[in-house]
């Protein structure tokens, strides 16, 4: 089997994010480890893309490299046509602040701020003058994800599901066009996983482009498209069509069959 290095997905109308020849090598090991290997990937505006692969396949590294958290060793990342690798640290963090949102496996909230302040933090950083607007957005998000009552709670006083929904609120408070999620349900039980995935699906439906790394086929089944990574290279891709709760289990079965074929 030849290894397609190009994303075989159909060419969407507008590309939100794209990588070209993306390579990441860690030189701290002997010999150096090539974790991402010449990846070309395009994410359409408004698309829900899931990256899957076995442990150590480079999924998270790919996510952090295309989001500008880490610098690639070679290649480029284009956000709506603008090369992110040419930006300096200040410009790149401005892009992350205003255009991107992040959700991690652990909520990673600052322990000395309450839930509301944790969500407010990026908004204030983006527009320090517009406190009123920022607070209004925080309130609206808390309402939307059903956690308004924990606004003044400490981060250790809420459930994992509530914390992860708060984490989504934080990611959305600057109204980004792109949301990255790294195993957002990895530390949750099945009920909380559903809660969080419903929230993310809701985010996607409202027009936000979503790139998510996951192990869980149930979660991946909600995507528009799933790409599969092996040893740092993209090996296959599957169009899933639009998700609906009625077809959930059928899509999951279909995905599992495809994944088995890839040795997952």
């Amino acid at each position, binding site marked *: 089997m030849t290894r397609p290095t190009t994303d075989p997905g159909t060419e969407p109308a507008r590309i939100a994010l794209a990588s070209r020849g993306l390579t990441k090598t860690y030189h701290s090991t002997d010999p150096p480890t090539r974790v991402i290997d010449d990846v070309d990937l395009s994410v359409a505006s408004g698309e829900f893309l899931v990256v899957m692969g076995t442990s150590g396949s480079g999924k998270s590294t790919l996510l952090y490299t295309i989001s500008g958290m880490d610098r690639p060793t070679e290649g480029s990342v284009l956000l709506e046509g603008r090369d992110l690798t040419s930006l300096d*640290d200040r410009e790149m*963090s401005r892009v992350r602040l205003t255009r991107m949102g992040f959700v991690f496996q652990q909520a*990673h909230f600052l322990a*000395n701020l309450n839930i509301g302040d944790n969500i407010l933090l990026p908004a*204030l950083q*983006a527009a320090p003058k517009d406190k009123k607007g920022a607070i209004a957005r925080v309130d609206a998000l808390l309402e939307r994800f059903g956690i308004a009552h924990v606004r003044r709670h400490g981060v*250790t006083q809420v459930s994992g599901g509530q914390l992860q929904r708060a984490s989504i609120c934080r990611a959305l408070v600057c109204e980004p066009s792109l949301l990255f999620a790294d195993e957002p349900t990895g530390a949750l039980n099945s009920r909380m996983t559903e809660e969080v995935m419903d929230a993310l699906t809701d985010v996607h439906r409202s027009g936000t482009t979503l790139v998510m790394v996951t192990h869980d086929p149930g979660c991946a089944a909600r995507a528009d498209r799933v790409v599969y990574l092996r040893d740092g290279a993209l090996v296959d891709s599957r169009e899933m069509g639009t998700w609906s709760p009625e077809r959930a289990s059928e899509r999951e079965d279909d995905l599992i069959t495809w994944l088995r074929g890839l040795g997952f």
Partner: protein
Amino acid sequence: METKGSLYLRYAYNDLTGNKGVHLALLVVLTLSAFLMATGAMVMERTLGSVDELFEQARPPHFLQMHVGDIDDDALERFADRHPEIEAWHVVEAVGFDGAALSWERSPTGGSGDLSDSLIDQLFTTQNEEFDLLLDETGAAPRPAPGETYLPVAHRTAFDLRVGDELRIATDSGSLELRVAGFVRDAQMASSLSSATRFVVSEADFETLEGAGGGTPESIVEYRLNDAGAAADLQRAYEADDALPKNGQAVTYQMIRLVNAFGDGLVAVALVFVGLLLIVIALLNVRFVIRGTLEDEVREIGAMKAIGLPDRAISGLYLTKYGVLTALACVLGGLAALVATGLLTRSVQVDYADAPLGLASFVVPVAALALVYAFVLLLCRAVLRRVRRIEVVGALVHGSVLGERRAARRDRRRARRARGTVLASTGGLGVNGRLALLDLRAEAGQWVLLPLVFFLATVLMTLPANLLGTFESPRFVTYMGAAESDVRADLLFSEDVDEVRDELLRNMREDERLTDVRAFSTLLYETRGEEGWETLRVEVGEHDPDAIAYAYGGSPGPGEIALSVLNADEYGLSIGDGLAVRRGGEETTLTVSGVYQDVTSGGFTAKAHGEEATGAAGHVVYANTVPGTDAATIATEYDERFDTATVIPMREYVRQTLSQVTGALQSATLVSFVFAVGVAALITGLFLRLRLTRERTRMGVLSAIGFSTGEIIAQVRGKTLLAVVVGTVLGTVFAATAGEPMVGSLLSAAGLGLAHLEFLPNPWLVYVACPLALITTGHLIAVALTAPLRRVDKSTWLRG
């Protein structure tokens, strides 16, 4: 089979080598503490040993009285007969020359110079027979042949003189040339605080010098007692006897000893002080590192507990590690101290004697090191008690050193605090500033290390600098019982002293370059002491109310007297009390108007209102110079014009009198400056290294949500700077306020005549340079340690 001890040691070794940076920094701090403690202890032991050894060999007098003029030998005989405690006595005859009258020449190199820089009396004398011996390097009392002389050892280094040099003494009847045959150590006059130094010549040359003119003949009546403790009583008895010669200074054994130990003893005290502060810093540091290590290794500890290792065994693993580290530090510090002590006591050995190594030479430094070891290990043991509190589940599942209940309590506390902190509330700090402050508050228990260390480092740095500034300040003369002035003229005793004084005063008052010419005479009054009448030296003249700082009260007017602190203590007098005095058979009662501080003449002086009198024991004239004139030039001019007057700029007088003390303080200040900066840098580095590891996740989150690396770095630097500035400012304030009475009471306890020390620091050094040096150090370390963060992949902060 493996023994438990060797397992512990192997664990300690692996752990120490595995975490090199942190352990190296810890080792350096511990080594410095051990080094300073051991050096301080050894310098003290060696200095006292050297002084003791010299005293042992040279047998200085227990009481001596200087005198210029005729001596009634019969009266001295009678006095000695009445006092059986006198073991031996003699009258030393000496001829004093001004430093300017002495010059030297070296053949064949042709090097030459003179001793005019030395302001003290250069006394020529012969070797004594029984006691007060002047000793050469071997400890023998040399007797120079005619044409030879032995010089004071201090001159060898001060003027670079060598054996074989030709010393020329300018007398009224031509010059006398003597070959330098060697150098002698003088138990009585080794210190810079003494007003004279002695040269040994042969009987024949002494007679030549005595008869040649140009020098001042002087007699020193010296007593050696069966019991050194009886010196004060003998002095009182001596001074009460009118027939005995006593128009010069009187000195007791205790004063000689104190003066000798003062300079180098001060360095030793400073070293021990620095060492103690460093130990406190090292302990804080060890505590911080151990607590951090327990947090980092909580899962391992949990696992050890889970497999059934007792708490004692787990603490034992850590205790062995810190024990090894501290022992290593003590060995390294001790070895370095051996070298440092050799260097620091070299001058003591030259000026005094090479002290033999005794039991104390080994016990003292070892005890100092043992103290360091014990302190550190006790602290480790106390901190390691936390191991007992760690719960297996909490450790393994949550990675928490806190048990379930404690963790819950902490969470509730945090939540309560977070409820109140609302980012949205107004404030001019900006998001970054506010986050940094919130973090400082939340992690205050950790961050407090930095202000504490900088507080201590500032105290360490500024106290010696404050003291040095005080001793170097021109205003220090006010501690010497004299008014602050530019020029000081001392009239030596001569037959025509009153005429010379009048002539000098007339000249000075007519001189347009001089203002505020004030003359004082030292009169010997008598006052009632414990055992009848005793001598009281009183400086008589017009005392300007603002000229010196009075500890209590003010300057004496007519019918009044002001006493030095030690005299006021001696007679148990305070302001308003009456003091009965008599002079020339006439008795009056003077009212005490004030008490002032004085370190001269052993601290026992007094001041009274009156005219410049004839028949005084001494005369001194102070004058100020008008702006634009040079005090040194004017002083030299007068000094040359008046043979029997020593006229010198005040600054020079203070500098030379205190040269040994200020020299010692300069070294102490330099040592403490270097150590304070070094330790501050080391600990800031160590702290930030550990702190940055702890803050990785926080930095990762901030980076992900859009804070630039520059902002994240600025937060760390800002927190560090704030902590450093707070510590430094508090330290400076402490040193300037509480430090003054602290040092003052220490000096007061030393009986130097200083009751209320007021720091006269060099403000630029103490309030600008020292704090700035520390703050800059802290900031530069923060910059150096945070700069590499820019190159790191930010995801590693989140992914561990």
